[in-house]
């Protein structure tokens, strides 16, 4: 059957719907300019699991669960679920960890970078430029033959099912209000939309993103490598829809200072996202896309997602993450280490292969 969402109208539709969900989720309770953020939501989920205990950053985000399971359900239905893996998993783990650290120095995944801009946060511009620069560097390695190696079909179904099963487990814990997962905070828990709305939105977004291959990193990468704007049109639809609804909901406030969950140190906004963009490019997808692939049975992407959880824990346990005041004490050093790691991996794994 022809896939409508693989067409130009389809990808724009997907982007518009996902961007609209982001604005609505903020309206009904998610944090400001954070209707959707894969990095922040994985960080909050890591916090709820006590991998870190940063105040007010602890909550099992049903959006994450929904997106992965939505993609899982749709890929099963379309016969695209395949348990597979074996492409440099440990490298992907560390790329995921460093990508998360870079994203938390900027304060957002690429989705949130565009949502911040759509909410009037002009600091996001430095982050988006950094993302583009990181993806551009990654694209140069990809054009020269960079590869983390081929994945193979798994011998059995288990590898592809571990992360979807874990998400079902997380959902059960969230629904049961499992005591030990209660946030260890004195002031307040992370602001959030009602659970069922978050979960439902996540399922729809996961399904749409699976069909359309929506990917913010891929949008820039395809522009750099093949001058193809297909995915970029989806991202444009995403940002424009969020912007329009933000205006309608009174959620648009233009400026640099005092933006929600943001800082004004543009060098670190930029370099944090260079690290994130390069890591996403080498690993083949932005955090949202990695969740989708993990839902399709790709255990390499599942390892990348787990790396992001580990990165979030490191970021908040060791003062790497930024705050409203600016970069964390050791954030800049971590970004430099991450860039060295990603560039060394890129150089080692690039070889001119015969076409």
């Amino acid at each position, binding site marked *: 059957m022809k896939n409508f969402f693989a067409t130009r109208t389809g990808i724009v539709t997907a982007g518009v719907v996902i961007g609209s969900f982001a604005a609505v989720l903020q309206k009904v309770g998610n944090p400001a300019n954070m209707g959707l953020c894969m990095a922040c939501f994985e960080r909050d989920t890591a916090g709820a699991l006590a991998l870190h205990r940063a105040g007010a950053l602890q909550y099992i985000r049903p959006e994450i669960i929904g997106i992965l399971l939505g993609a899982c359900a749709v890929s099963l239905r379309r016969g695209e679920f*395949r348990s597979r893996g074996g492409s440099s998993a440990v490298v992907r783990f560390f790329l995921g960890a460093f990508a998360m650290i870079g994203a938390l120095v900027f304060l957002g995944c690429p989705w949130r970078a565009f949502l911040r801009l759509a909410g009037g946060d002009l600091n996001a511009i430095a982050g988006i430029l950094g993302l583009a620069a990181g993806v551009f560097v990654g694209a140069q390695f*990809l054009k020269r033959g960079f*590869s983390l190696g081929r994945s193979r079909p798994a011998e059995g179904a288990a590898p592809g099912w571990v992360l979807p099963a874990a998400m079902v487990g997380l959902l059960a814990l969230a629904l049961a209000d499992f005591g030990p997962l209660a946030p260890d905070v004195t002031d307040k828990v992370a602001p959030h939309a009602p659970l069922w709305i978050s979960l439902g939105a996540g399922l729809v977004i996961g399904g749409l993103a699976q069909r359309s291959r929506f990917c913010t990193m891929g949008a820039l990468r395809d522009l750099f490598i*093949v001058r*193809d704007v*297909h995915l970029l049109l989806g991202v444009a639809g995403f940002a424009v829809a969020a912007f329009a609804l933000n205006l309608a909901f009174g959620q648009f406030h233009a400026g640099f200072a005092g933006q929600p969950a943001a800082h004004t140190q543009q060098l670190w906004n930029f370099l944090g996202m260079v690290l994130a963009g390069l890591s996403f490019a080498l690993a*083949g997808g932005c955090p949202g896309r990695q969740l989708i692939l993990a839902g399709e049975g790709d255990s390499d992407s599942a390892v990348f997602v787990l790396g992001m959880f580990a990165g979030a824990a490191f970021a908040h346990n060791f003062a790497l993450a930024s705050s409203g005041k600016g970069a964390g004490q050791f954030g800049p050093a971590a970004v430099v280490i991450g860039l060295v790691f990603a560039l060394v991996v890129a150089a080692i794994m690039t070889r001119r292969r015969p*076409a």
Partner: protein
Amino acid sequence: MSKQVDTRGLSCPQPVVLVLRAIQQGDQMFEVLLDSEVACENVRRLLGSRGFRIEETQAADGTVFQVSR
């Protein structure tokens, strides 16, 4: 026998990069092996935009594109 581009098991955008390289080397007729629907869509889009014709067949372990201009 025409040249073969094996993209099986490669993640985005490597299938596209390999096919692009074949085009840039001036190949007018070649075969592409693919094992994911995403790669099929991406390679189809690239070849379509470069004016190639594709004949698709299903094999046991994926899809085969016979590409010609």
